[in-house]
């Protein structure tokens, strides 16, 4: 990969304090996000993918906290930022789109007010007229009619609301957009259109998109690289074509083979992975996947493997390699 690195995440852990003790939802994770790439971050419920996405913007609320690690964004460790710098970072350099736009948009604010407010909070000297101009341009760019500027969120369809959210994220020329299940509540045709649009936006604005989703087929459709999480650990990272061609971690392999495929020439049998993801209050010792792993060895239940680069730009967290 000759791409520039936008974010370097090193040894990042997020811990939640619970009554039964600390739970590490994200456990010593290392990965990079390159400039201008779409990185798909996948895993099942509770694997820590959303927590990791929020941690990148330092948006973990108590009782959770980032307990360890560095987040280097364009050369600066944002863990050292104070609140004011962080506020500036969120909005100007990074932004997040969530699953349910109805709960992220203010129900009593119009579309134009959302966008203008976003601009003026960060750029105090921009006049309302020029902010409106910028906002209108963005809304049109996203394929929403200008007449929708005065609509309230409830008057928009789900797909439109999500495009407004995207617009708010883009309006200050952020470098990074974290999309957490952004297309999940949408119907499949609307989802496909939003996916097309996110891809175009990436091409046009050169942003990096971290796409957090449980929808592995959608990642295959959109992403340049894929990162797979299991029970708080990053287990595999690689180029999208390489990983789908030859998944190396047994969890990735099982996961990819259990995804339903609409094509009839695909395998007719889904892989049935035994067991269910573990409860993170009492994670298995060693490799957290070993109780469900078809290739588990004695060492797997004792010692946690470390993340190694088995091929250029291909990282695996498994004792097999």
């Amino acid at each position, binding site marked *: 990969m000759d791409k520039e690195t936008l974010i370097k995440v090193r040894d990042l852990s997020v811990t939640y304090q619970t009554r039964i003790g600390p739970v590490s939802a994200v456990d010593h994770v290392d990965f990079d996000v390159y400039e201008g790439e779409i990185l798909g971050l996948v895993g099942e419920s509770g694997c820590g993918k959303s927590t990791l996405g929020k941690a990148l913007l330092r948006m973990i609320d108590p009782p959770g906290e980032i307990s360890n690690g560095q987040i280097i964004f364009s050369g600066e460790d944002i863990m050292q930022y104070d609140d004011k710098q962080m506020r500036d970072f969120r909005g100007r350099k990074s932004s997040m789109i969530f699953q349910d736009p109805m709960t992220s948009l203010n129900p009593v604010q119009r579309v134009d007010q959302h966008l203008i407010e976003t601009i003026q909070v960060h750029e105090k000297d921009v006049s309302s007229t020029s902010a409106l101009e910028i906002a209108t341009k963005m809304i049109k760019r996203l394929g929403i009619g200008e007449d929708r500027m005065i609509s309230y969120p409830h008057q928009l369809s789900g797909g439109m609301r999500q495009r407004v959210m995207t617009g708010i994220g883009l309006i200050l020329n952020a470098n990074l957009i974290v999309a957490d299940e952004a297309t999940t509540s949408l119907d499949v045709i*609307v989802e496909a259109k939003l996916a097309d649009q996110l891809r175009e936006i990436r091409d046009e604005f050169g942003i990096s998109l971290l796409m957090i989703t449980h929808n592995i087929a959608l990642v295959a459709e959109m992403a340049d690289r894929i990162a797979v999480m299991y029970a708080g650990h990053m287990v595999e990272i690689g180029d999208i074509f390489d990983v789908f061609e030859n998944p190396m971690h047994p969890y990735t392999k099982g996961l990819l083979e259990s995804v339903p495929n609409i094509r009839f020439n695909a395998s007719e049998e889904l892989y049935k992975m035994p067991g269910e*993801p573990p409860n993170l209050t009492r994670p298995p010792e060693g490799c957290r996947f070993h109780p469900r792993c078809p290739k588990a060895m004695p060492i797997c239940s004792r010692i946690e493997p470390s993340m190694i680069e088995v091929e250029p730009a291909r990282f695996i967290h498994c004792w097999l390699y």
Partner: protein
Amino acid sequence: MDEDIKNNEVILKLENIKKYFPVQKSLIDQIFAGKIEYVRAVDDVSITIKRGEAFGLAGESGSGKTTIGRLAIGLEELTEGKANFDGMDLGTLSPEELRKLRRRMQVIFQDPMASLNPRMSLGNTVMQGLKIHYPEKADKHRDMVLTMFEKVGLTPPLFYYNKYPHQISGGQRQRVVIARALITQPDLVLADEPVAMADVSVRALLLDLMLHLKDEFDLTYLFITHDLATAKYICDRIGILYLGKLAEVSTVKEVYQHPLHPYTRALLAAVPVPDPKKRRTEPMPKGEIPNPIDPPSGCRFHPRCPIARPDCSEIEPQLRELRPGHFVACRYA
């Protein structure tokens, strides 16, 4: 009576069913607007399901798939048309007769946490159906529940018997819901998005379980889903709905390999394929699903259709058999 109902092949026959829901409006609007508006959730749909078949109903939000399911088992009253279950017209049954008939038609809903009583033990939850429909076998209820737990993969059954919904995982909860549906020995199971909440690895197990149980208990499934990829693994035939109307019906293989309705084509193309080498290139239809209160005239898909002709906005297409067993509601397919 129909030939096929008599010879016992058909278990469910929906004939020209309609369901209109009145739109709630303020009193002032009602007085001044003069007439009540209706959401035409299901608008003249006919479906015949054979015994032992897994029939899928697929469509986007607001297509009417859930309403059709509820109409099919008498959970909702028809505005028009007939719903016929195993030779009985549901519309003519008394509430008491319908209650008895429910033993033979059970439901699995999407969210097991919402459909299980958090304060009732799993054993007791599954036993409720037995208490209602088989009161004479009271001494055997416990054993029947334990056997059913085993069948749905809740093993060891005694371990789960006294547990509560919050103590088990989401996948296990859905197994309890399946056990509760099957304990009354139904003929027809309405499964409304039964695996939509489950993670991929758990989903494959649940689908496999449902297929397995269908054979073991000779079930007929009415499988409602927005996920065409999942439907492929469980359904024999599938009906594609758009705005309360059937666009296309045939076997899953036929519909997926030879989609004829422009809407079905778009829907199938929109489903992402888990293979980065097969990325979609087809453009998506313009616009969004229109408001079902005032659906487009003629063919409801015409404003978004890539092959629409002028008369599509005037003439409503009827289902035609364009290939053997393959019905399409499009005049230019």
